[in-house]
């Protein structure tokens, strides 16, 4: 399916104290089922806004967003969201956090036992079976983010939405989570939309990179196809000329065509 997720002429205008502010305009994007798309751009360009339109947390002022030929109206569990600040509920264990999502989606149809199996499977997928009964305060930042991914994936969403999921982590943890995400996405064939400002992350993970112009009235300026073979290995890619070429294309877009003046 070529048009699994479809964004047509999306526009987002905010009413602020200083008047109307056009964050996004004329955004068009078609995402295939199973595709991994990275949204990259300078901070403040509206990439998170675009993700929130897809998640339904925000309503587009104009334009149409379709998921599997259905219009997106409000948030729903068919779109799994991984937040930048993990957003785990601190009074629930890792298991409890994932179970809350599983129960919401499958609770009406499945037995408690089946829900338990699903929850455990999701935590095993992110290699956290051992920390299942710990509270978020007792685990590291990287582990929290993995619970967030498990929570999103446990709902078997049509699209996985990630808002700079590794932005708050240190470089080493980030690298290992990127590898883990590649494995998980390969295993689950999840259609993924990921916001990032990390060029290497975008090239390493995605099938296509949607590069956004600077706001206000930002839009997708260019879409770059990342035709690197999978599975990808970060060490091998370091020597790969094509990888560097693609990386250069993104950098060129961000730092030559759409440089952002320091505030």
């Amino acid at each position: 399916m070529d048009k699994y997720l479809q964004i047509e002429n999306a526009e987002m205008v905010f009413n602020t104290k200083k008047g109307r502010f056009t964050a996004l305009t004329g955004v068009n994007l078609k995402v295939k089922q199973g595709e991994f798309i990275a949204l990259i751009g300078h901070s403040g360009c509206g990439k998170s806004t675009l993700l929130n339109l897809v998640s339904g947390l925000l309503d587009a002022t104009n334009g149409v967003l379709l998921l599997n030929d259905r219009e997106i109206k409000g948030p729903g569990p068919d779109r799994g969201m991984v937040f930048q600040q993990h957003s785990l509920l601190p009074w629930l264990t890792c298991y409890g956090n994932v179970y809350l999502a599983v129960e919401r989606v499958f609770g009406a149809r499945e037995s408690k036992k089946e829900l338990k199996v699903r929850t455990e499977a999701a935590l095993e997928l992110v290699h956290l079976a051992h920390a299942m009964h710990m509270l978020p305060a007792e685990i590291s930042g990287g582990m929290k983010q993995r619970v967030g991914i498990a929570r999103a994936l446990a709902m078997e969403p049509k699209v996985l939405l990630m808002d700079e999921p590794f932005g708050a982590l240190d470089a080493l943890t980030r690298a290992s989570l990127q590898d883990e995400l590649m494995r998980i996405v390969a295993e689950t064939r999840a259609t993924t939309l990921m916001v990032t400002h990390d060029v290497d992350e975008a090239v390493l993970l995605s099938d296509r990179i949607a590069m956004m112009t600077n706001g206000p009235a930002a839009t997708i300026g260019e879409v770059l196809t990342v035709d690197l073979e999978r599975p990808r290995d970060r060490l091998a890619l370091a020597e790969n000329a094509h990888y560097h070429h693609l990386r250069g294309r993104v950098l060129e877009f961000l730092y030559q065509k759409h440089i952002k003046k320091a505030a």
Partner: protein
Amino acid sequence: MSAVTFNEGRLDDLMNHPTTIKPAAKTPARPRPTPFFQTERGRAVLEWLGAAFRKALPPVIGIALFVLLWQIISTSGGEHGLPGPVKTWESAKLLFADPFYDRGPNDKGIGWNILHSLYRVGIGFGLAALVGIPLGFMIGRFKFLAGMAAPIISLLRPVSPLAWLPIGLYIFKQTEPASLWVIFISSIWPIILNTAAGVARVPQDYLNVARVLNLSEWKIFTRILFPSVLPYMITGIQLSIGVAWLVIVAAEMLTGGTGIGFWVWDEWNNLNVEHILIAIFIVGIVGLLLEQALVLIAKQFNYE
């Protein structure tokens, strides 16, 4: 405490045998057992004692100075001065020798009086919590209700608790419900306000989770709102029990019958000043214990 410790046995050895070549020992020398305070455990005990001492020192000095000041004030008053610490202590020993006697309606042991006061605080505060917590949730959740409640709360909250007593006496015609009413009305505000503030401050992150998962209102309440508000609620309860305990003493002075407040007034009428001083300590200590108990509960709900 000095970190350097000499093992005297080894020092001796070194002085007697300065060379590294030791004479062939006839029998393998039995090592002298290390003194307890040089072993690992011994040092830990010393360390702990030192830390406890350093922590206890300022309060002990403070209390000692306080008692000294008390003694000075009492002796400087001459014959009609305040009873001194020793006299008060003797009197307290007598008083607590039989705390639970009962000789008719106006003559009960100190234990009964304390329990009566605590009972009133419990009932009055319990009713305040029963009404105040749901009210706080509604005010926090619905802007409109908050707007409605704001002028009333701002107007009534600063009213001195005892000003409510005549209203209670007029409505209930009896002293017991009237004093409960005073506790209720003066301790309800911190509960309402803190609960409402907690609801208004539920992190947007958590509410976004609720929206993305599309949780039902009931699940939002039980899994997100309630646990998130709980620490605020407990702060409100803490403040409100503090207020209730302050108010009960004053209310009982006016309503009479039983209770620590009544007892203070009764002893004033008997001109038993030692007992009044003891009552002040009792009120302080019970208040402190209530506070500490709630701090312990609050610690249970600190998630970070």
